[in-house]
């Protein structure tokens, strides 16, 4: 590789304690970042700091620890609003992750907007978490769920997408970056088409957040969901962003403490967003870790991270091309740091086991995208997914592990 590195990779790797872990006598080569990413020391410390210096329940205590915890929590909300380009912090709802964010939108927006005969348009490359919640609310409302076709390259078939849009389309919900293939979808064009029909646009940003600089207002969507754990933050925390007027209009998701204004047996009135969608004691330290992850990513620069990852991915694609009988599934022109592949005569599950023995962590399976696997006629794939700390040397270990698998399984 000739071009200069985007940042000091060795220094960055030293920020992640787990990358020094040894597995069977070797450093772990962690190539499963699309499933979940590892955490830098700054995130771990930020979470500890809350518990050590300012932890109590939030928004209700008059005592100093509650005030500190509330400040930690709300400062994190403001930080995440800035990270995604929200107009105000009130548009940032803390959720457990993208799955909960999508369930919230499907349930609340679905009950608000969907009626018998209405349609929700998805795509054939959605994660199950952007399919099943819509099916559930469609069952309740009598709406129909449609899926736009995917091309052989693993791109969204935009003609097919446009053809499925109609005046019955009330909601369009699309993955920003495909977890299984790495495809970056043309969300600007999708937003334009959805708006023409007056449909609400929901984007699943679980895979986009660690790779793309987000500006939810410029994207032209109405709701955006992301997961902290995929962007180097803690697990169990994520963000749902929604346009303020919509968050005000749609009904709450869960009922309980914090989300009410007044409660009586005659009737209850709800708090304003974001409290309206945060029933119960939330994950208090999680947002602080997430905000620290946002700081960490912005400190390196997301464009620099993306540039580094693109280099590692391209190197991986060139190394994998040397493996006889290997086929990359998903060759979109716009791709994030994912290479999904199958190898003739070797089941992905067996590949995963062999690679694990070599200390190389990849994901194998259907990646919670069964319709997409069906589309490509494979039961499963192996997937290497890269993060800001991965190296070309780790890709070499992946390639060597694949050679071992071939030796073992090909007679």
């Amino acid at each position, binding site marked *: 590789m000739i071009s200069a590195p985007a940042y000091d990779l060795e220094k960055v790797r030293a920020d992640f304690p787990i990358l020094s872990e040894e597995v069977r006598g070797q450093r772990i080569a962690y190539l499963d970042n699309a499933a979940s990413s590892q955490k830098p020391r700054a995130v771990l410390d930020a979470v500890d700091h809350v518990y050590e210096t300012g932890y109590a329940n939030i928004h209700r205590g008059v005592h100093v620890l509650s005030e500190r915890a509330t400040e930690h929590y709300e400062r994190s909300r403001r930080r995440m609003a800035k990270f995604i380009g929200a107009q105000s912090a009130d548009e940032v709802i803390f959720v457990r992750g993208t799955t909960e964010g999508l369930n919230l939108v499907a349930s609340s927006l679905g009950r608000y907007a969907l009626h018998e005969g209405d349609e929700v348009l998805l795509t054939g490359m959605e994660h199950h978490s952007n399919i099943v919640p819509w099916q559930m609310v469609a069952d309740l409302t009598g709406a129909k769920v449609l899926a736009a076709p995917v091309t052989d390259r693993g791109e969204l078939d935009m003609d097919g997408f446009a053809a499925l849009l109609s005046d019955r389309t009330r909601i369009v919900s699309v993955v920003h970056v495909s977890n299984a293939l790495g495809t970056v979808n043309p969300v600007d064009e999708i937003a334009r088409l959805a708006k023409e029909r007056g449909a609400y646009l929901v984007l699943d940003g679980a895979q986009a957040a660690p790779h793309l600089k987000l500006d939810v207002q410029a994207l032209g969507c109405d709701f955006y969901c992301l997961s902290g754990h995929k962007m180097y933050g803690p697990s169990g925390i994520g963000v749902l962003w929604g346009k303020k007027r919509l968050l005000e209009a749609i009904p709450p998701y869960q009922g309980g403490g914090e989300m009410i204004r007044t409660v009586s047996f005659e009737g209850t009135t709800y708090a304003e967003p974001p409290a309206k969608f945060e029933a119960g004691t939330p994950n208090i330290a999680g947002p602080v870790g997430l905000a620290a992850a946002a700081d960490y990513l912005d400190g390196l620069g997301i464009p620099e991270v993306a540039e580094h990852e693109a280099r590692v991915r391209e190197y991986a694609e060139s190394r994998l091309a040397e493996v006889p009988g290997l086929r990359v599934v998903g060759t979109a022109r716009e791709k994030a740091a994912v290479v999904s592949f199958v190898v003739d005569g070797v089941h992905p599950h067996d590949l995963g086991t062999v690679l694990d023995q070599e200390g190389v962590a990849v994901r194998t399976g259907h990646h919670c995208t069964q319709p997409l696997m069906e589309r490509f006629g494979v039961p*499963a794939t192996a997937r290497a997914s890269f993060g800001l700390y991965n190296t070309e040397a780790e890709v070499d270990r992946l390639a060597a592990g694949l050679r071992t698998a071939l030796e073992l399984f090909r007679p």
Partner: protein
Amino acid sequence: MNDALRDLYREVILDHSRRPRNYGAMDAANRQSDGFNPLCGDRLRLFLLVEDGAVRQASFVGDGCAISTASASLLTEAARGLPEEEALQLVENFRGMVSGEGEPDGASLGKLTVFAGVRDYPTRVKCATLAWHTLRAAIEQSGETVKTE
């Protein structure tokens, strides 16, 4: 290649995964059951011909990893000729061996002891047991797709 891998992928397993025995649908079958592992997408359909309370023939079709394919293939050989009760005992014996919950009874497991190494790979236990759960369902005629969950 390390010894742990050789221990898991024994020659017999590799051989049966490459050339599964008794592969194909069976017209004469009077029992049939489907198995599905939602975790990895492995699926198989097991066919049995049961006469006079014993398994006369077994065959399967399906799509899965080396462990699950070899397990199904060896199952079709092992089950043949077994009275239903003994086949069910073999299911338990096999499950005990690969899950590490039981001491394998080598005598009744015979060739199936090649799967003993699976116990060191907790994520692969379900691959090995899929066909066996499906055998139990076929014998008990539950008629439902077996899921390894």
